[in-house]
């Protein structure tokens, strides 16, 4: 069997008390204000989503998202103004094309679709934002830890495998 050649892979099962870690990139004018609206309305949602603010969803470089996963995010959210409502005219049109392309790439690399969510949230849609956070957190929780960093370390990335047997 091929396993004879490989150290066993796969992350250790979800540690007890594991909580999903999700990064959300929000545009300032619509989605961030939408998140504020959820707060002002005292809507409750899980604490697993940490928000990073950018001026426009058009600023959200795919490299930010690959970095997040590579550093141990279990999920990533990207939110921007609805198409047609961009405060910078068409910044979100770029997002509209980048994110599906990025998503296909991530899926091809084995990251489940539910771990990467791209949604439009307007300044008024506090309820939608709260719902989104609940749903995404739940879905990611069901998927379990992604554990990219240790997964790669086990495969020798950055450190080698120093596998016996070999001579010298």
């Amino acid at each position, binding site marked *: 069997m091929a396993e004879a050649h490989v150290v066993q892979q796969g*992350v*250790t099962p*979800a*540690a007890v008390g*594991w*909580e999903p*870690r999700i*990064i959300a990139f929000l545009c300032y*004018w619509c989605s*961030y*204000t939408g*998140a*504020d609206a*959820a*707060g*002002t309305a*005292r*809507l*409750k*949602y*899980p*604490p697993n989503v*940490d*928000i*990073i*603010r*950018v*001026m*426009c969803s*058009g*600023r*959200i*470089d*795919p*490299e*930010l998202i690959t*970095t*997040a996963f590579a*550093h*141990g*995010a*279990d999920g990533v959210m990207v939110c921007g103004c*609805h*198409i*047609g*409502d*961009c*405060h*910078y*005219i*068409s*910044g979100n049109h*770029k997002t509209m094309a*980048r994110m599906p392309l990025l998503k296909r790439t991530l899926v091809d690399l084995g990251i489940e679709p539910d771990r990467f969510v791209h949604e439009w949230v307007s*300044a008024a849609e506090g309820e939608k934002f*709260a719902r989104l956070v609940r749903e995404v957190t739940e879905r990611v929780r069901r998927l379990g*830890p992604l*554990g990219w*960093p*240790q997964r790669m370390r086990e495969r020798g990335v950055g450190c080698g495998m120093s596998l016996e047997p070999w001579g010298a």
Partner: protein
Amino acid sequence: MVETPGSCSGSGNERENGARIGVFICHCGGNISDVVDVKRVADEIGKLPGVVFSTTQMFVCSDPGQGLIEQKIKELGLNRVIVAACSPTLHQLTFRRTVARAGLNQFLFEHVNVREQVSWVTEDAEAATQKATRLIRAAVDRVKHLTPLDKRRIPIHPAALVIGGGIAGLVTARDLAQRGMKVTLVEKQPFLGGRVAQLHTLFPTGEDARDALKRVIEEVVSHELVNVITSAQILDSEGVVGDFRTRIRIEPRGANSQLRQRASAVAACPEQTINEFDYGLSQRKAIYMAYPGCYPPIPAIDWNVCTKCGKCVWAVGGRGINLAEQPREMVLHSGIIVLATGFDPYEPLYGEYGYGIFPRVITLQQLIRLLDPLGPTGGRLPRNDGEPTRIAFIHCVGARQIEGVNQRQPDGRVKDYCARTCCTGALHAALEIRRRHADVMITDFYQDIRTYGRGHEAYYEQASEAGILFVRYDPRHPPRVEGNPKGDSPLLVRTSDLLTGGLDVEMPADLVVLATGVVPHDISELVGMYHCAVGSDSFLLEVHPKLRPVELAVAGVFLAGSCQGPMDVTEACAAASAAASKAAALIAQAQVEMDPFIARVDEELCTGCQTCLTVCAYDAITRDETRGIAVVSEARCTGCGTCAATCPSNAIQQFGFNDAQVLAEVKALLQGAALG
């Protein structure tokens, strides 16, 4: 108060690019501290390298709170400041000013939102405390990468251009002029006044619309700082805030002030055309005055209709009419621009509620013209045999439409927004009719009555008292207007009445009035010219509906009136005054200050791949052919950062949001996550 200089002695700071960070965590009088254990957070954060001071405050935004920040900056030589409190949309500016007062660059401040996005949305106190700690930790790593930034300053040419001669444009021009600003007001039509001129009386005061209008026009045209240009069309515009150059084309009026016998000139004209002023209810000549007492009080010639037969010239003995007059072009130099381009009434689709099929189905605007003593019928409603006795109003025509129920508009959308003015407008007109003709029976088909404005509700009460019959229809099954087989009246309105539990109503009518909504006046060429953001309802989009309601994202361009959304006259004037004061304030500064979060190209890294050239919605990126690299125009850049995410060499960076800063946030947030 927790003070923790321990973990970050001098050497430590050097390792942290010399950052000396102060962190101020707000209780917000319990709003935060009731859920988040702020003291614990302050302790945790105090241990982070680079953090030399970490504390909590009851209200950081209070005077003592701000005072403490200033004091600590001076006392400990803080060079980065983090406040964890409410949303930055509320107090970010406050604290930037605070640190600036203490002599620290205001952009070395970072605002963390632990209220709207932590304490108010999280039930579990422990989880909230951890989340707050994470967010502040991310800010700590982020600020290490911050650099001092200066607001951009651009000198402003002290003159304003106001586009649109309706009530909003007029009020804007007046207010600006009264503040001593030089103003040019351009109007596409030959006459000022816009939509208000077509009204009869105004709600809620009932005063005469044209009197009100006349007063404003007087104030405007009599002001020496205002230059009014009618029949003006905008060709193109270049430049940026402080220095706009707008090229306009002035159509020849044909007549001028020397023209004395204006009536005979008009009377002499043999050409007739539809009078858009009366919404097609009357005809006018090729040389015409838009309405009695219009401004300028000089006839204009409609060149699409005029055959240059010369009869008018003969009639006035040749004085004051020049059929050979040529169009002129001129360039207007202004520091700011106000868009007051107004709205158009919604034009029902053919057959919508029988419109276009039955001549007795008219719009509210047409009714208002009919009620006008100076209108096409001298104020009389259309007769059949004897005065019409039954009038039906139908609300929400071309407003609050429902996808799948109402027919799509040419643009593929339905008009799903409330037009706001038609409820009161319709009731206002209905009561006017009742006042004139006690015997008229009026039925009002509505889904909701939204007489929301001050004094507007009175119309509803009066209407009910006046015996106007209200029938509430289900928006999913709007009323149908049909021809009436029985001869008693030409039309039938059918619907089921929600108020009587869905009882089928069949109402004969002599006149059906459609309370139509409003759509923005078509200014697509201006939208392109000024890079305006446009909402899905195709009205112009302000920067922020509450915080910056009359500004466009493009610096130096302002919004006045109903180009921004449905407004009644009161609201349009209020918006206009707001725009005027905003614009005036900007001009008064003599130079404009803009956020420094703009993009810049690293000339070393730019590979000249030109990918960015097509992505800027503001044409702020150009190619320096000699050096073969991209260049960002600081004045044009609005700081969205889209180009930064586009650049495949990371050569474009956005100040305040560069890769180092955002990546530092990402990694800090994920500390520990790596262990699963």
